[in-house]
């Protein structure tokens, strides 16, 4: 077989959140029960990517309690406040701050009550692993559960609501000038491909994804987004195509619409870059889309590196590459050796 290898890179930036003056809000309510166990009512939909886990970790961090003490009730117009959609790589970036705000407020309430219970100045108190402690020590003075119990006893729910508005102004209608998005995601990927110059078949043999997560709140979940995103990007680049003939779908079966299998996706190397963004929770921002976008461009550039031919149409089917090679040959721009 006539295999040629090539390397290519693709970069991108991606406006995180909704932009264009569309409402881009997050909100959450946190309630601590009498035993210190805590429920976060979060409107954000978890797609399995882990926004519930992010919400849990943010709440645990801010409240000084264990993640095991937290339960998240998510995405129900009957019980959770509106947190906007899970799209635009915005869930962590926007809802994370809303949860952070709610947790901070509840923590103030807890410390306020603890200060009265302990007869100790508020500023000397901190919460750590579910216990109110003196600042700088881990020595437990009273459990947050006991404090929450007192709050409930006094008719205060030990609850707080937090909100965050990430809405931007729209850009100028004539020039598109303006601050389009609150922030941007950034990523660069390196692809290594093998091109079979006889058949035109391209295989992705290596992918390295350097993705700026701002701060990886849950690194394994971030890697999950990066790897899954790149696999979807690979599908876009090489395999998947929804064909319509005269407006009628011809690929309405997974036998014809080809999603990459475990044998098509190489090991994806995740390079998590962390350039903290003060607008996100603990510096974090979304990675779902930044993880997907550079893959096809990186493959296109790697194909050029391998065979010196630029493909400008997706998907990069074997047939397309094959005929591009034939054309290049006929122009004397490609030789077999």
């Amino acid at each position, binding site marked *: 077989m006539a295999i040629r290898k090539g390397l290519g890179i693709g970069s991108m930036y991606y406006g995180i959140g909704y932009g264009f003056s569309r409402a881009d809000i997050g909100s959450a309510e946190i309630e601590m029960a009498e035993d210190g166990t805590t429920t976060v009512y979060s409107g954000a939909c978890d797609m399995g*990517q882990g926004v519930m886990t992010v919400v849990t970790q943010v709440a645990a961090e801010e409240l000084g309690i264990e993640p095991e003490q937290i339960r998240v009730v998510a995405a129900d117009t009957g019980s959770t406040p509106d947190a906007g959609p899970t799209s635009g790589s915005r869930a962590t970036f926007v809802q994370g701050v809303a949860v952070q705000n709610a947790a901070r407020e509840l923590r103030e309430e807890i410390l306020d009550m603890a200060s009265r219970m302990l007869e100790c100045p508020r500023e000397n108190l901190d919460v750590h692993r579910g216990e109110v402690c003196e600042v700088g020590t881990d020595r437990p003075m009273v459990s947050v559960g006991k404090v929450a119990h007192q709050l409930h006893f006094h008719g205060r729910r030990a609850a707080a609501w937090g909100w965050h508005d990430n809405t931007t102004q729209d850009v100028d209608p004539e020039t598109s000038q303006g601050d389009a998005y609150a922030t941007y995601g950034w990523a660069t990927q390196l692809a290594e491909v093998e091109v079979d110059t006889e058949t035109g078949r391209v295989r992705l043999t290596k992918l390295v994804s350097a993705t700026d997560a701002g701060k990886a709140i849950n690194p394994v979940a971030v890697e999950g987004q990066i790897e899954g995103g790149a696999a979807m990007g690979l599908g876009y680049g090489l395999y998947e195509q929804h064909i319509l003939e005269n407006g009628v779908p011809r690929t309405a079966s*997974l*036998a014809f619409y080809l999603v990459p*299998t*475990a044998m098509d*996706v190489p090991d994806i190397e995740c390079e998590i870059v962390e350039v903290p963004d003060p607008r996100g929770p603990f510096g974090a921002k979304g990675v779902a889309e930044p993880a997907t976008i550079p893959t096809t461009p990186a493959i296109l550039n790697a194909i050029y590196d391998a065979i010196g031919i630029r493909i400008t149409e997706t998907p990069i089917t074997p047939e397309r590459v094959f005929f591009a090679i034939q054309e290049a040959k006929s122009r004397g721009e490609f030789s077999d050796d």
Partner: protein
Amino acid sequence: MKQRYALRVNGGTRETEAEPHESLLDVLRENLRLTGSKKGCNEAECGSCTVLLDGRPVVSCLVLVPDAVDREIVTIEALAEDGEPHPVQRQMVEQGGVQCGYCTPGMIMSAYALLQENPDPTDEEIRFAISGNICRCTGYGKIVKAVRAAAEEMGNEGT
């Protein structure tokens, strides 16, 4: 016309009525309420419905009920023992192999079948064994890692 079938499922015998052309998947899901096996395509292209039939992984969407009679059927619901998840299940969780979860049961059944047959597979063998299970979320890397970790865990248990 509906007929009575006795199916040997997850170590017990379950009686049910079904049309003979109904799939094992539909009968498991609708009649026996074993909904862990998912219907992602109903034509053997996604693997979400994978169960074991006499120890082998099959796409239950294409097995007609009568063909499952007198055979040992194992579904995802039977992998945990006494509330203790199987190592493949535990490692899928720990290594981050689960995202939306829809492919997960079928994926686990394929991996489980592989490890029954080949307790120490290479990554390539793992990828081959799960290549009939489409996952749209993870990019497969963490699933391969989970299966490898499960193999190690099971190997350690055996020694």
